[in-house]
Structure formats: structure tokens, C-alpha cells
């Protein structure tokens, strides 16, 4: 019966010691240990979440990059195309302007040549007339009395004179 009768001394000391151990361990061991474990678990969880988020962000970033590159490529193509078109246009315009200028110059040249020709013809006509008159005077041998009439005749002749 002794074996199953709790002795008061051991009951007392067990109570005191156990309570002391519980309170000391709560204050100096369990609180910090469990706190640190929780904190660490939380930080690991946070790190994992952050990694997941970063991964998603990276994927997003990569997609963005690809999109930007594609856009840039398209833009470049557009620019090149525009430049080519502009070049062609400029060349065409330059050609047109040049030909227009050439035509103008040609026309002006033609007009001036015509004028020169006409002038030259006029001069020639009057020269020929004078020459012819002088020749006629000499041929006739005498100066016509009526100078006025003769001048009229000359003018009339010149007028009627046509080349070609």
C-alpha cells in the first residue's frame, strides 16, 4: 500500500518544482522558442510568396519586353518603308521639276531664237532692200526724182518680201 500512497513531501516538492519549471520555461524558453519558430515559418512563407510574385513579375516583364521589341521592330519597318516612299517621291518630284524647268528653258530659248530670227530677218530684209535699191539706182543710173515715191516703193517691196 505504501507504493500507491503519495507521500506528502514528494507531492509538495513536485508541485513547487514543476510549477517553477513551467513558469521559468514559459518565460525564458517556450515564448522565445515558439515565437522564433513562428517568425521563421512566417518569414519562409513570405519569402516563398515573394519568390512566386517575383516569378510572375518576371514573366510579365518578359512578355512586356517581347511586346516592346515587336513594336520597335514594327516601328522600324514602318520608318524604313516611309523613308523609302519619301525617297521615291522626292526623286519623282525632282525629276518632274527638272523636266518642267527644262521645258521652260527650252520654250524660252525657242521664243528668243524666234525673236532673234525675226530680228535677223528684218535686218536682212532691210539690208536686202537697201542693197536692192542701191543696185536699182545704179542700174537705172539716175536717182529717181521723187524720193518719196521711191521710199514708198521700197517699203512696199520689203513688206511683200518674204523669205522661204
Amino acid at each position, binding site marked *: 500500500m505504501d507504493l500507491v500512497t*503519495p507521500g506528502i*513531501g514528494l507531492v509538495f*516538492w*513536485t508541485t513547487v518544482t*514543476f510549477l517553477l519549471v513551467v513558469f521559468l520555461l514559459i518565460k525564458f524558453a*517556450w515564448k*522565445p*522558442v515558439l515565437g522564433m519558430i513562428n517568425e521563421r515559418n512566417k518569414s519562409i512563407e513570405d519569402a516563398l510568396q515573394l519568390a512566386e510574385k517575383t516569378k510572375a513579375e518576371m514573366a510579365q516583364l518578359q512578355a512586356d519586353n517581347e511586346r516592346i521589341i515587336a513594336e520597335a521592330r514594327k516601328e522600324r519597318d514602318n520608318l524604313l518603308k516611309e523613308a523609302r516612299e519619301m525617297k521615291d517621291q522626292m526623286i519623282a518630284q525632282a525629276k518632274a521639276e527638272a523636266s518642267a524647268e527644262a521645258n521652260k528653258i527650252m520654250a524660252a530659248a525657242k521664243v528668243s531664237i524666234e525673236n532673234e530670227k525675226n530680228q535677223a530677218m528684218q535686218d536682212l530684209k532691210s539690208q536686202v532692200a537697201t542693197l536692192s535699191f542701191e543696185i536699182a539706182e545704179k542700174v537705172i543710173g539716175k536717182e529717181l526724182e521723187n524720193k518719196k515715191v521711191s521710199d514708198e516703193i521700197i517699203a512696199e517691196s520689203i513688206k511683200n518680201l518674204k523669205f522661204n
Partner: protein
Amino acid sequence: MILKLSKRNFLIVCFTFLFSCISFANDDSAVEEKPAFNINETIFGHIGDNHDWHMWDYNGHAVGFPLPVILVNTNPFSIDVFMSSEFEHGHKTVTKGDHTYKMVAKEMGGQDIFYVENGEVTDKGPLDFSITKNVFTLFLVAIIMLVMFIGCARAYKRRPGQAPKGFQAWLEPVILFIKEDVIEPNLGRHADKYTPYLLTVFFFIWISNMMGLIPFFPGSANLTGNIAVTFVLAVFTLLITNFSGNKEYWKDIFCMPGLPWPLIPIMAVVEVIGIFTKPFALMIRLFANITAGHIIVLSLTSLIFIFGTLAIAPVSVFFVMFMDVLELFVAALQAYIFTMLSALFIGLAMPEGHEA
């Protein structure tokens, strides 16, 4: 290969033992008329508590050290403190103030201290608050636990947020196992409040059990195999269970819903008894398991002395080794069971009922 070698080595050791034992036995046979070996006294002497720490006998003298005796007299109130060596193993009476004490060996191990009046030993004694072998071991376990876990906490503070290292890495899985697989499934969202108590109970029982398995000085006391210790632990669980019981728990005890009214008083009585039987079972289970283990180990060792020959030693050693390994497992298992059932009882006191 290694296994084979070690097996052979083991056999060699056994045979060496056997032969040396036989030669010893022959030597001993010359010395006759030793007092008969009293197995009851030996076993219960080890199982019970003691006022001194006996380590071994040398030339018929006990080698050990005395422990403080603290006696509290109730009428009138006084406290006497002296070393147990003053009793000289019960051969002498000790007089302090008005009282004379005598230490009397109990039938089933341990000693009682009685008053001596007019040269006669009475059957009354003072309250014995002595630092006995078990109390000494209790203090030792407390110190070991404080050093272990405060050291562990310091390791956590030194390396915040990092992976555990060394001893801390050994303790953490155990702490987490108890916390996550024993406490949390039973207590759910209330777990944090009770985790410190339950962790302390687990490690206290485990370390005490293991201390009991060490066969020499710092160990050998049958701490968790003493009903007083398991009684105190069970009372703590009883108190915590009932103080944390919610309205529903008490309603289930005194007025079980859905029960026909004539049965309510009968069930209330059964339930009230149940409040006490649950921790009572905790107390008996731990006490009986540890005490039984000690008795088996001591019995097997006593075989050598019962047969009076060392030839039986290899058999004893083999079986004791087997039992020790089993007890090592039981030490952890009983700590686990006590903790798990405590958590379960506390959890049952907080049913998540219909309105909760």
C-alpha cells in the same frame, strides 16, 4: 560485415563473462553463511524513496551520501532540518528541540520517520518534507530542463530566422512534433495557450523516465514511477481541464442535451466521476508503466543473486539489455501518451458546439 564482426565480438564478450563468472562462483563458494538474499527488499528498496543516496556496499559498509531531512511538526508548528546521516541508517534516534525522531525502514522500501516518546517508537510522525532521493532527482531534472531549453532559446536568439544548428536542431523536431502532431490536432485554435504546459509535461516525464533508466548515481531514482509525482502531474491536468471547460462542457456533464429527463441525474453522477477517472488513469498509467519496467529490470538482475552464481549473469545481462532498450522506448511513449491524453482532455473540455 560490420554486423557480423560485432555479433562475433558480442559472443566473445558473453563467453568471457561466463567463464570469469564461473571462476568467481568457485571462489565465492568458499565463503558460506551469507544472509539470505531478500528479493522483495532489494527490489522495493530500489523502487521506493530513500533518505540517503546509497550507491554501493564496500566491506559491508554502504557507500553513498546523506540527503537533508526536513521535518515539519504541526503541533506546535516547528521545522527541523538535519542530514539523514544523523540517523546512521536507522540505528540511532535524533533529538531536535522537543522531538525525538527515529527512521524506520518500511516493508515495501523507503523509510518512515516516527516520533520517539519515552524511549518507545510511536506510530505517529512529523510531516516529512525531506529532500529524498526522488526530490533530489526532481531538482536535477528541473535543472537539466532549464539548462536545455533556456540554452535552446538562446540559440534561437543568437541566430534569428536561420536554420537550427547543433542541439537546437535536435530539439526542434521534437518540440514541433509535440506542438503540431499532438497538441494542435487536439486543441485546435486554443493550442497556443496550452502548448507551454504540455511541452513542459512531455519533456519533464521523458527526461525523468530516462533518468530512471540510468543505473548509477545521477539516475536510478524511480521518479515517474512514484505515485506522488504522477499524482501531481495528473492534478495539474485535472485543474487545467476543468478551469478551461466552457459552458458546453459543463452542460454536457450536468444536463446532457437530448437525454430523457429521468436519466439526467444518473448521467450527471457518471460524468462527474468521469472528470476524476480521466486524470486518475493518467496517474496510474505512468506510475505503473515505469514501476513495472524498473521491477522487471531489477528482477532480471536479481536472478544472479537468487541463483547465487555468476553463470547466470550473461542471461541476465542479455535480458536486462533487451528490457532497457524497451524501457527507452517506453520512456518516450509514456511521456507522449501523458501529453497526448492531457491535450485530448483539455480539448474535450472546450467542445466547438452548436453556438460556439
